[in-house]
């Protein structure tokens, strides 16, 4: 369970975000000061019955972000990429920075898909919903989200072990970044990890 939650947090809280005024730019901006991958930015998250986890950006080199994830008394390092276009991770490339996999692109439309192939297995991330108005509760506000459903084939190896999720429904906001992730396990059981605090929009 711990590994499972950490895996979720690794992607979730490593998924730092950027401000909406950058979306107008055609060029993928990677300057840390212009994106929410700025060192020092943090996100806190929790799931019912589990301790709080905090991810803090410690490095940003040309959009490649390293975050320290504190969970259960341990600290882990996670990597991702943040640009003005979207958030990417290296989970399925096992850290190969030449192969970023989009977690979200803020200008994506419902039905847009990103695929990561490993041999004859395929991880699919698809935009399944995009708010047109503020409709998702977030602390004391209602916000817009872009929802990405990730489908993971059974038996896929992640970090040397079998994936402990079959689906993940991600919710992102252009200003606050990661909002929540509902992880479905192979037996159908679901766990939702929610973001509880961030300084990214400050």
């Amino acid at each position, binding site marked *: *369970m*711990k*590994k499972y939650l950490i895996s979720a947090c690794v992607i979730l809280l490593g998924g730092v975000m950027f401000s909406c005024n950058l979306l107008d730019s055609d060029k993928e901006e990677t300057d840390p000061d212009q994106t929410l991958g700025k060192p020092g930015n943090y996100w806190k998250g929790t799931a019912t019955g589990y301790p709080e986890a905090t991810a803090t950006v410690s490095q940003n080199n040309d959009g490649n972000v*390293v975050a320290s994830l504190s969970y259960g008394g341990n600290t882990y*390092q*996670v*990597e991702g990429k943040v640009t003005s276009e979207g958030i990417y991770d*290296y*989970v*399925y*490339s*096992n*850290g*190969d*920075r*030449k*192969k*970023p*996999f*989009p977690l979200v692109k803020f200008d994506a439309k419902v039905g847009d898909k*990103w*695929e*990561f*192939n*490993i*041999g*004859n297995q*395929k991880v699919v991330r698809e935009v399944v919903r995009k708010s047109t108005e503020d409709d998702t509760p977030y602390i004391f506000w209602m916000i817009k989200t872009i929802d990405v459903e990730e489908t993971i084939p*059974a*038996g896929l190896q992640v*970090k*040397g*072990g*079998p994936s*402990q999720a079959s689906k993940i429904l991600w919710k992102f906001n252009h200003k606050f970044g990661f909002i929540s992730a509902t992880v479905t*396990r*192979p*037996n159908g*059981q679901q766990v939702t990890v929610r973001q509880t605090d961030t300084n990214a929009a400050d």
Partner: protein
Amino acid sequence: MLFLKITIPLRGFFSAAGIVFLLLGAVSCGRTYREDEADRSMKVLNSDWVNFFSQASEKPEMKAIAFLWDQPSAPLPFPKEKFTVGKVYQPYDFEAAKGIYVWDEQTFVRQADTSVVIFRFEPDTGGVYRSAFILSDFSVAPVGSRPDFPVEMAAMLQVNGAGPLTINHQATVEEHLPLHITTELRGPDYDLKLKLNRTREQDAGTLRFTLRMDAGSQEIFSFDLDAAIGYSRQGYFFNQIYFDSRMFRHSVTGKIDYAQIDPTGADYAGSFNRHSQISLFEGRHKVGDIVLAKTADGELLDYFIRFSSGEEKLLSDYLPFLKKILNLKY
């Protein structure tokens, strides 16, 4: 005259060399099978594997291992650490498991203390146990994922007094990843050896893996892999892979330039096929090339064998066991 003295030996040399080369060519050059020949060859390969699996599973020591694996009351490392949804991971405690356990027809019952783990089973009518499994050494080191990685293991299995099966395993772990592994499983009439060596020079390195099974002087199968790898915070990833595998009378050679393959591209299969060359041979004759392509429904990708005619057939239609291996569920 001088010219003749020089040219005659040279001409003789080239003539002799030409004959040798022609003979070598005639002996060593294989050809590519026609589709009907390749089809037969694939059926032969499947038949070889089916016979192998069937005979292996009938061996008394394999049945005994399967029996022990399925017993929740047997404190063995791997089944106890197997990932189960909703179950908190518990590492195997070799010290706590030490003892003599006997089978009482339903469960293993701990009978006595000892410095190793012993299971006695298959009792005969006189109350004597004809089979035993002894785990005499077991230790692990933490790696980047669960369970911890075994770095030392010594075990022996004797079934009905027949020649023992011994398992010896040694490994080293560095930076939370296996660095060296040497495993040998020696049965009454076969021997399975596995080796892995990994190197690292800054953010690049190599990985060499070999697996070989022999029965007496006969090689049953072998698999050799050499890879150039890169390192990341998550572990390592493959850049280039070269492999060579022999199985019964067939062999597969392959090279995959993984660094050039785009896993997120719209034409992933095309990218995979352009940057890889995987060929199947029967003896010296080429059966076909293994490629990645869309299945009949056009949705999923799978491995196909491409014959000399250009026809592509689903590999798992010929070798159904591949589906189980490639889609292993944990």
